[in-house]
C-alpha cells in the first residue's frame, strides 16, 4: 500500500498519476464540448443523423451509460436490500459510479438536442402521457435519491437509514430502467421496437452492464492501489456477472424467437439476423459472440476464480457487447424501413421503403465518448476525495456464506 500510485485515500500519494488521469478525462470532455458548440451553431447538418436515422451514435452511448448507471447501483442494492455484506462494503462506490455514469449519459442526451437552450422548457413543461417526460422525472429523482443514499451510507450517524433509502433507490431505479426500455417499447410504428419485452430486457441488461462496469472500476482501483482483490470476492462477483449475462442472452433469444414466429416480423428478423450488413455483424459478432458467449466462456473456464485479468476481460467484453446491442437496437430499429403498406414495395423521394444509411460523423463520436469522459472525470475526482475503497469484513463474509 506504500507504493506511490494511489489515487484514493489522500495519503502519501504521488499526485502525478491523478493529474494525468484528470487531463485525459478533461481532454475527452473538451472534445465533446467542441462537438457540441459546433453542432449547436451549425445545426445537425454536420452529423450523420438525418430524417431517417434520427437517433444516432450519441444516443447509443447515452442510453448505454444510463442503463449501465442504473445497473451499477445494483451492487449497492444487493447490499442494502438483500443484506449481503460483500456488497454492502461496495455500496458507496456503486452509488457514486451510478451518479457519475448517469450524469455522463444525460449530458450526451441533452447536448444532442436540437434546441438544448430549451432545457428549462423541458424541465417545466411535462406531457405526462410521454414516457420520455417520465424519464426526465426519473433521472432527476435518481440524482436526489442516490445522493441521499450515499449520504446515509457514508455518514456514521445516518447509517441506520441506509437500508430504507437503499430500498427506495432500488425501486426508483427499477422504474427508471423500465421507463428507459419503454421509450422503445412504446413505439408502435416500427417493427423493431413495439414490444412489451423491451422494458424487462433493459432491466436485465442493466444488471449485466452495470456489474461489468463495477467490476472494471473496482479492479482498476485495486490495481492502482497495489491491493490484491480477495478471491472470495472475485468468485462471487464473477459468478453473478455470468448469471446476468446468461439472463440477457435468454431475453435476446426469446425476443428474436417470438419475432420469428410472426410472419409480419420475418422481414425485420431477416434484416437483423441475415442481410442487414453492419447490423447483422454487430448482432452476431458484437452482441452475441463478444457480449454473451465469450464472457460466459471466460467466466466459467476453470481457474478463472484465480485470475483477476480474466474477469476484467470478461467484463470489458460484456460492455463492448452492450454497446453493440444498443447500436443494433436503436439504429438498426430505425434503419429498417417502416412497413406502411404490408405486401407492397414502396419508393419515394423521402427514403421510404429503403434501408437507411448511417455513417456517424466525427462530432457524434466526440459527443458520445464525451459522455464516458464525464463519467470517468467524475469518478476520478470522487475516489480521490472520498473513501470509496471497499473495506471488506471477511469475518462477516464467511458467516454470510455459511448462513
Amino acid at each position, binding site marked *: 500500500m506504500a507504493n506511490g500510485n494511489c489515487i484514493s485515500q489522500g495519503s502519501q500519494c504521488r499526485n502525478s498519476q491523478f493529474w494525468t488521469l484528470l487531463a485525459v478525462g478533461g481532454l475527452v470532455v473538451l472534445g465533446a464540448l467542441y462537438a457540441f458548440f459546433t453542432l449547436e451553431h451549425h445545426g445537425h*447538418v454536420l452529423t450523420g443523423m438525418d430524417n431517417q436515422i434520427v437517433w444516432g451514435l450519441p444516443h447509443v452511448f447515452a442510453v448505454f451509460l444510463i442503463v449501465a448507471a442504473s445497473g451499477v447501483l445494483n451492487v449497492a442494492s444487493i447490499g442494502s436490500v438483500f443484506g449481503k455484506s460483500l456488497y454492502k462494503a461496495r455500496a458507496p462506490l456503486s452509488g457514486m459510479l451510478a451518479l457519475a455514469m448517469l450524469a455522463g449519459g444525460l449530458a450526451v442526451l441533452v447536448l444532442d438536442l436540437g434546441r438544448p437552450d430549451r432545457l428549462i422548457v423541458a424541465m417545466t413543461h411535462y406531457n405526462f402521457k410521454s414516457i420520455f417526460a417520465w424519464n426526465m422525472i426519473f433521472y432527476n429523482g435518481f440524482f436526489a435519491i442516490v445522493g441521499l443514499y450515499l449520504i446515509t451510507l457514508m455518514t456514521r450517524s445516518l447509517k441506520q437509514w441506509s437500508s430504507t433509502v437503499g430500498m427506495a433507490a432500488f425501486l426508483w431505479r427499477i422504474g427508471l430502467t423500465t421507463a428507459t426500455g419503454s421509450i422503445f417499447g412504446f413505439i408502435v410504428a416500427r417493427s423493431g421496437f413495439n414490444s412489451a419485452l423491451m422494458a424487462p430486457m433493459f432491466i436485465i441488461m442493466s444488471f449485466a452492464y452495470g456489474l461489468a462496469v463495477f467490476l472494471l472500476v473496482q479492479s482498476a482501483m485495486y490495481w492502482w492501489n497495489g491491493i490484491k482483490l480477495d478471491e472470495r470476492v472475485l468468485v462471487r462477483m464473477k459468478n453473478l456477472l455470468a448469471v446476468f449475462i446468461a439472463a440477457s442472452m435468454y431475453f435476446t433469444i426469446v425476443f428474436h424467437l417470438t419475432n420469428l414466429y410472426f410472419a409480419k416480423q420475418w422481414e425485420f428478423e431477416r434484416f437483423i439476423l441475415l442481410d442487414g450488413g453492419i447490423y447483422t455483424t454487430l448482432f452476431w459478432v458484437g452482441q452475441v459472440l463478444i457480449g454473451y458467449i465469450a464472457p460466459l466462456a471466460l467466466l466459467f473456464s476453470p481457474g478463472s476464480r484465480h485470475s483477476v485479468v480474466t474477469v476484467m476481460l470478461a467484463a470489458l467484453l460484456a460492455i463492448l457487447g452492450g454497446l453493440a446491442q444498443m447500436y443494433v437496437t436503436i439504429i438498426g430499429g430505425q434503419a429498417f424501413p417502416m412497413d406502411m403498406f404490408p405486401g407492397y414495395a414502396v419508393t419515394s423521394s*423521402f427514403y421510404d421503403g429503403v434501408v437507411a444509411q448511417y455513417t456517424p460523423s466525427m462530432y457524434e463520436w466526440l459527443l458520445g465518448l464525451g459522455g464516458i469522459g464525464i463519467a470517468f472525470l467524475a469518478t476520478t475526482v470522487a475516489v480521490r476525495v472520498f473513501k470509496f475503497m471497499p473495506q471488506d469484513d471477511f469475518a462477516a463474509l464467511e458467516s454470510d456464506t455459511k448462513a
Partner: protein
Amino acid sequence: MSQPMQDSTTDRRDFLKAGTLVAGMTLGPGVLFYGVAHSRAPEEAASSDVRWGMLIDSAKCGDGCSDCVTACNTENGLEGKTGPQDTQYIRKLNIKDLRTGYVKELPMLCQHCENPPCVDVCPTGASMKRADGIVLVDRHSCIGCRYCMMACPYKARSFVHEPITNQNPEVPRGKGCVESCTFCVQRVDRDEEPACVEACNTNGHKAMLFGDLMNPESEISKALATQASTEVRADLGLNTGVRYQGI
C-alpha cells in the same frame, strides 16, 4: 309590442301571423348569413365542432405528377430539396404489390390522426392536436428531441438540420425543431383549402378533397359516406383525418 285587447280568435291568429313574420324576418337573415358567419372569425379559437380531414383518390393521382409537392413547398417556404436531411411535408409514394405487380402512386402527408402517437410521446407537449383536429408542432416548446419522428407511423415529420432564413412570414420554421404538414393551417384559418388540394384541383386531377368531417353536409363527408375509403395502417387504430381510395 302593443296589441288591441280583443277576445276574438281572429286577433290571436293575426297576432300569431304577425309574430311569425317578425320572427322570420329576424331569424331569416341569420340563417341566410349562416354560411358566412360559419367561418371562424380570426379572434375566435378553433373549435372541436369542426374536424378537418382529407380524402385522396389514388386512382385520380397522376403518374409522375407532383403538383401537390410543388405547391406545398411554395406555400410553406420549403426549398424542395430531397436530400436525407431535407424537409418534406408531403411526398409522392410509388407502391408496388409484390405478388401481383400492381403499381399505384399516391401522396403521403401527415395523417392528422385522432390518436396521434407523435402527440403521445412528446415530452414537452410541443407536438399537439388543435381542437379542430389539425396536428401541429408548437416550436415554442419543441426541444428537438426527435422522439415524435421515431413514433410517427407515416414518417411524416422532418427535423430542421440547418439555420433557416427568409422564412415565409405565415409559416415560421427554424433550426433544431421538428416540423410536418399543417394542413396549411394558415390557409385553413382564412377559409381556404391547403395548397396541395388547390393545386390538384387546378391541374384537373382533382384527386384530393378537403373539408370538415364533422359536417354531414360537406362534400367530403358525403363522399366518405357513399364510397369506400381506407386509412393507411388502419390496424394501428389511429383514426386518421386523411383517408384514401383505391389502395
